[in-house]
């Protein structure tokens, strides 16, 4: 094994990314007495002014990456809070206009759970199924729209599959119907171009820690033209134009700003790097029988690849892959025994959902990481299949769908 491999090999970038060293440096220069540590809300001295300046510079880096006005960026504690603020904020502000919301079954829990909460508060929510390739179609949205629909919330890039939704088309449609459109873009920044000056998106959630920034910081884009109003969810001082109170965490904000500045600068290089790793990985798994890639290869980013290894259970595969850090389904649900709700929504049979592993690559993944993973992986699948009664039945020609299980 080459010396530069760090074990376990980290292939869980969709869960979180390491902080880029350049970002870490920026953060540490905003913490101590000799750095920019002040409270950006302090108006009476230089410490406060310097901190405010740093926060505003970071705000413009975030705005630059997605081509919007910096005044449209509201800092939050992460994409989960941004999703909550967008969905509950619009619902609470416009509830006299209507009480129907459209979202999808493949959203992150940070969207689904606020929707569930709104249902308890008297709203109605339609949860759309994805198509077989893992994307939400415009037609399904059109069919779900009602007179009283006030909000559509659809993710940009699915965290389990890597599939992209056509937010351009969905946005245009939503705008034509005067329905607000929220996009959870936690996974897509730095991976695909986002141009909010062209997209008909009213609200967009961002996270720093999926794009080489620190955890605990995110942002919500709130469109000014056309204007969307939201009701604040956290009160206490009226920071961020009253939309999100609380002292701004300067060090985390400059971390996110630097991470997003780098993301813009290095997006092409990052993309090429990851696309090459993805191809290398695909070529490598080609020799393993009975595997299924979940999500349409033509409509997904190369950063994430989700594969079902038939006749092998995912949790045991992860255990056998102890030198590789991957996840089965979403980390948020891996405490439960349910197979991935996203894969179920795709229409995959439960046993294939149970057999799925998500590999996700990033800026610091090397060819050696991929090659080493591939050799561990094929060995692990082979050994677990030797242990699997289902594999034995498959080899004997038994149709598992026709077996009566007890």
């Amino acid at each position, binding site marked *: 094994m080459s010396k530069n491999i760090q074990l376990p090999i980290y292939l869980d970038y969709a869960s979180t990314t390491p902080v880029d060293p350049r970002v870490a440096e920026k953060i540490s220069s905003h913490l101590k007495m000799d750095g920019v540590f002040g409270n950006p809300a302090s108006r009476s001295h230089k410490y406060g002014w310097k901190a405010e300046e740093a926060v505003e510079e970071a705000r413009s880096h975030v705005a630059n990456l997605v081509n919007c006005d910096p005044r449209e960026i509201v800092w939050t504690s992460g994409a989960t809070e941004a999703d909550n603020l967008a969905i509950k904020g619009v619902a609470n502000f416009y509830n006299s206009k209507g009480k129907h919301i459209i979202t999808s079954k493949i959203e992150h829990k940070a969207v689904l759970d606020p929707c569930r909460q709104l249902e308890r508060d008297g709203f109605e929510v339609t949860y759309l199924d994805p198509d077989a390739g893992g994307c939400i179609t415009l037609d399904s949205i059109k069919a779900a729209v009602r007179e009283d629909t006030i909000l559509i919330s659809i993710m940009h890039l699915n965290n389990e599959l890597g599939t992209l939704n056509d937010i351009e088309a969905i946005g245009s449609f939503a705008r034509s119907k005067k329905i607000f459109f929220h996009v959870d873009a936690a996974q897509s920044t730095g991976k695909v171009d986002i141009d909010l000056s062209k997209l008909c998106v009213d609200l967009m959630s961002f996270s720093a820690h999926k794009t080489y920034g620190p955890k605990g910081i995110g942002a919500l884009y709130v469109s000014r033209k056309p204007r969307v109003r939201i009701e604040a969810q956290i009160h206490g001082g009226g920071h961020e134009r009253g939309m999100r109170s609380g002292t701004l965490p300067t060090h985390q904000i400059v971390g996110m700003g630097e991470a997003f500045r780098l993301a813009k600068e290095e997006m092409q290089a990052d993309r090429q790097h990851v696309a090459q790793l993805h191809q290398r990985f695909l070529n490598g798994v080609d020799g393993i029988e009975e595997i299924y890639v979940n999500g349409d290869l033509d409509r997904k980013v190369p950063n994430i690849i989700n594969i079902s290894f038939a006749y092998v259970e995912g949790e*045991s595969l992860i255990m056998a892959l102890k030198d590789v850090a991957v996840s089965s389904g979403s980390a948020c649900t891996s405490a439960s025994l349910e197979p991935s709700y996203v894969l179920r929504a795709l229409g995959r049979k439960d*046993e294939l959902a*149970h057999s799925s592993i998500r590999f996700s690559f990033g800026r610091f993944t090397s060819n050696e990481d991929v090659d080493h993973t591939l050799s561990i992986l094929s060995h692990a699948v082979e050994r677990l299949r030797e242990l699997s009664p289902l594999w034995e039945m498959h080899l004997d020609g038994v149709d598992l769908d026709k077996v009566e299980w007890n």
Partner: protein
Amino acid sequence: MAYSKKVVEKFENTLNEPKKFNVGRFNPSDLDVGTGMVGAPACGDVMKLQIKCEPKGNSHVIKDVKFKTYGCGSAIASSSELVEMLIGKTLEEAKEIKNKDIANALELPPIKIHCSVLAEDSIKQAIDDYEAKQ
């Protein structure tokens, strides 16, 4: 999920040396073989347990066992643990093995108790199958 050290050890040993840990199969139609298969692919666990027995006095003794398990690490470890408990036991003794014995031996967390229940079911079924053939 954090597994107990015992589960991890059992799982890895079974995976690394399947033959030594009784992974395999007997011909299910042999008269001295009893087969039990429990669980369902949709639930994420399927255990297949086979016992090979011979008459001894008034009873029958388990001479050899083979198994295959599809499931999480705890399920595989539970099967493997059960197999070790079975060899050399009479059927009467084997019937006395309870899921708790397996769960305790492996220090299974509450969320994984069903793995040991499945293992208990598999031996019951295998014994039933064997007895029906006699």
